[in-house]
């Protein structure tokens, strides 16, 4: 077994053992790290590898969460099933946005705006349609029943989040090794050249968008059944999209480890800021730090922290 594989297994084993060794607060922080690493990894497929910057990925979280919550509340459908339906619905929206964007040749800034517009439309609709909860949103009654995607013990959520993060990372790793991943990386650099080499760029980008939005939609169910509430402004809003996007960008968009590294760096930061500063009226400080980090990354480490670390390691070797 190669050294890398051994290290990975060791890391996973340590993470698996962690909840039995540390206190409940740290477990909560880790859940936060894993979950946003998961969302970031899902975004990474279309935003990092395909290079299509989406600032509206919160829409997929919202759709996934609302779908499974509503299906559970109104039809008694277990969220374990509703989760997949939510994912498919999110993927459908992703397909629409992707098709409109790619077919009409929207790149860069225009594509970003398109994604923001759709996310905001979802938010306004959720805010104003009382049938889906309106301005108050949806509240999920706590039963602690695992069949309803609810757990008494924080540690169960920990393992679910860990599995999500590992699964998404495995998916991205697999993509990177295959033709799909090679095509994505090439498309990001020069689409026309790709077309001339037989790459159906529309199809590849659509696939990336659909996969990314599907996975993000799955995450919506976790969000709903971990926080027990879905607020339109929180779950469809730009702040959540920012949280999703910033980890892979700081950590390294278009790399497997980027979103993970980014989340391990930024999530504790956000959590600390929220815990210690929010009380004394300093809400938003962690967002200032996000902003400064974003600026710093663009100016000094445009490929993100992970590639920079790798270069450093290579230089030492």
């Amino acid at each position, binding site marked *: 077994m190669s050294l890398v594989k051994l290290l990975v297994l060791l890391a996973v084993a340590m993470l698996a053992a962690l909840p039995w060794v540390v206190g409940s607060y740290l477990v909560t922080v880790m859940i936060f790290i894993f979950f946003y690493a998961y969302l970031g990894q899902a975004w990474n497929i279309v935003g990092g590898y395909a290079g299509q910057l989406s600032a509206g990925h919160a829409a997929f979280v919202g759709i996934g969460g609302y779908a499974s919550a509503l299906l559970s509340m109104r039809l008694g459908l277990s969220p374990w099933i509703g989760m997949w339906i939510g994912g498919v619905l999110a993927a459908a929206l992703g397909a629409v946005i992707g098709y409109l964007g790619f077919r009409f040749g929207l790149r860069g800034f225009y594509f970003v705006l398109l994604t923001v517009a759709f996310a905001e439309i979802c938010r306004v609709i959720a805010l104003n349609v009382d049938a889906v909860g309106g301005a108050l949103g949806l509240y999920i009654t706590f039963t602690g029943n695992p069949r309803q995607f609810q757990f008494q013990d924080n540690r169960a959520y920990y393992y679910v989040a860990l599995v999500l993060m590992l699964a998404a990372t495995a998916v991205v790793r697999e993509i990177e090794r295959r033709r799909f991943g*090679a095509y994505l990386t*090439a498309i990001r650099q*020069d689409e026309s*050249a790709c077309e*001339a*080499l*037989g*790459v159906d760029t529309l199809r590849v980008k659509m696939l990336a968008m659909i996969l990314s939005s599907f996975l993000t939609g799955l995450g919506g169910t976790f969000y709903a059944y971990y926080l027990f509430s879905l607020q339109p402004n929180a779950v469809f809003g730009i702040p959540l999209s920012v949280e999703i996007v910033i980890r892979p960008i700081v950590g390294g968009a278009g790399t497997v480890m980027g979103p993970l590294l980014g989340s391990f760096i930024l999530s504790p930061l956000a959590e600390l800021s929220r815990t210690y500063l929010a009380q004394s009226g300093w809400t938003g400080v962690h967002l200032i730090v996000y902003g400064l980090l974003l600026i710093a990354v663009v100016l000094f480490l445009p490929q993100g922290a992970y590639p920079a670390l790798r270069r450093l390691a290579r230089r030492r070797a």
Partner: protein
Amino acid sequence: MSLLEVSGLRKRFGGLLAVGGLDLSMAEGEMLGLIGPNGAGKTTVFNLLSGFLVPDDGEIRFAGRLLAGLKPHEICRLGLARTFQIVRPFPQLSVLDNVKIATLARHPAMPIALEAARAVVERVGLGTRARELAGGLTLADRKRLELARALGTEPALLLLDEVMAGLNATEIDAMVHLVGAINADGVSVLLIEHNMRAVMSLSHRIVVLSFGEKIASGTPREVAADRRVIEAYLGEEYVHPAQA
């Protein structure tokens, strides 16, 4: 059987008639040179053939198949590959990985595509640079890479757009040798070139374009002596070194 049949090809950009009713044909294994002054419409013809532009009128038949409405990647899959006048390597990928993108078109499995790419890279003489990033190559090597990529898609017809431009004499000789070898292996080549020595020595036949119209076609010797060609483009009678 005719590999490429173009009839009545027409393309207009606003007030400018870039290509006006062009007829062209190529046989299998042929090397056809396309020459003419700048702005004659040569690259436009390439864009029309490869699907990057939609013709206003006319028909393009490749290997018996009409190309109307097909997207560039579909045309590439059919066996018609092109290079760009201003080369477009993937700057952050190595030479090998650049070519790999091309070979993946025919070999979806990574390991096989990689092997095929290695072979093509060796073939064009970039073997020693296989792991270098494309962004750091010299112009001559980038031109080779551009050629290698198109070759990687295993085309029946290769469109080369000014592949000698910007190269010095030694590099041109090497490129001529390479293109000749590729053609000898069975790949038909349609060559846009300004370097007369290269075109005249490589091509079986030549077509001359001026202001979107074909003004002459024939063997290199015939074309070089053609009065209209001399007036429009050559300036004076071009005498091939072999004839002098």
